[in-house]
């Protein structure tokens, strides 16, 4: 497509969009949207209202997005079968090798902490999962050399964790269904919400945090390592 045509299209589009957006209804005109933050502490016991939305009010979305991750991991692993990557023939220097080993536990602990404290502080399963996955990726990048791949966890284990996490997420959902009649129910199931702010509070939210964190971490690790090895 010609550049001028493209520019024209985009310009017209943005002008129209801006024109449309200039007429957003005023605060008075529309109903005030629900602010989950006002009620989340009482409803879920989670200090972090975003976590409350993610893992309680809209936990179904989260199930969906975790599914997206597992789907993508499955596909990428399938599309990119472990091939020998030529760029890996470079061997890293000792500083890198040892540095990574030293760094790994800290990264892992940091990730776990973000996951576990997701309902209390900023962060949560997704962020923690991403941090976790960096450790796996780092290790794989640094230690795979000369056509020899090394992982923190073998690909099969990764897959296993992913599937277990998926099952666990659904299990939590069915537990809610069995206990209160609503899929993924939290407080309604009767498990205590605990003291807001403590680690073991907010019912199933920490559990789901960890599950989805594992899923995201492992899923991202599979994706990135597969792509990297390609």
């Amino acid at each position: 497509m010609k550049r001028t045509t493209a520019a024209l299209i985009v310009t017209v589009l943005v002008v129209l969009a801006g024109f449309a957006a200039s007429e957003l209804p005023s605060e008075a005109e529309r109903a005030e949207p629900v602010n989950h933050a006002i009620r989340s502490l009482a409803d879920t016991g989670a200090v972090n209202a975003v976590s409350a939305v993610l893992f309680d009010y809209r936990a179904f979305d989260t199930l969906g997005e975790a599914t997206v991750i597992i789907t993508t991991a499955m596909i990428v692993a399938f599309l990119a079968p472990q091939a020998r990557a030529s760029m890996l023939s470079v061997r890293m220097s000792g500083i890198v090798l040892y540095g990574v080993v030293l760094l790994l536990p800290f990264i892992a602990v940091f990730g776990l902490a973000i996951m576990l404290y997701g309902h209390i502080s900023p962060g949560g399963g997704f962020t923690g999962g991403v941090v976790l996955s960096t450790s796996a990726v780092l290790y794989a990048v640094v230690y795979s050399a000369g056509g020899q791949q090394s992982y923190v966890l073998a690909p099969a284990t990764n897959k296993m964790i992913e599937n277990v996490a998926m099952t666990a997420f659904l299990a939590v959902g069915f537990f809610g269904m069995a206990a209160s009649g609503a899929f993924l129910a939290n407080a309604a199931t009767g498990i205590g919400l605990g003291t807001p702010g403590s680690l073991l509070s907010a019912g199933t939210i920490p559990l789901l945090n960890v599950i989805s964190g594992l899923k995201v971490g492992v899923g991202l690790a599979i994706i990135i390592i597969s792509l990297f090895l390609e």
Partner: protein
Amino acid sequence: MEAILATTAFALTAIGLYGLLTCRHMIRLVLCFNILEAAVLLAIVLLAYRPEALAPLVRDGEHAYVFPLPHALAVTAIVIGASLTALMLAFIVRIYKSRGTVYIDELKEWRR
């Protein structure tokens, strides 16, 4: 502040769309999608914003908090966007392996 951010979101969208229409290189297409994604996320997060409100770490009911829902939507959208990016990259790599090209307009298998 809001106006600036909203304009930025629109501008990013414009850049992304222009790139989509003009880039030949497939990786650049992916990058354009990431720009578009970022623009939408910016807009979504902007929806949560309320002047003078605190971040939604709720300690008591005395403060005004920003809306947590758009933040949650943004997290979900980020993950989905990342998945799409990964998928596209995987496809690009495979296409490069089998066709030896990274240019989108050289994919004309079906013209025959």
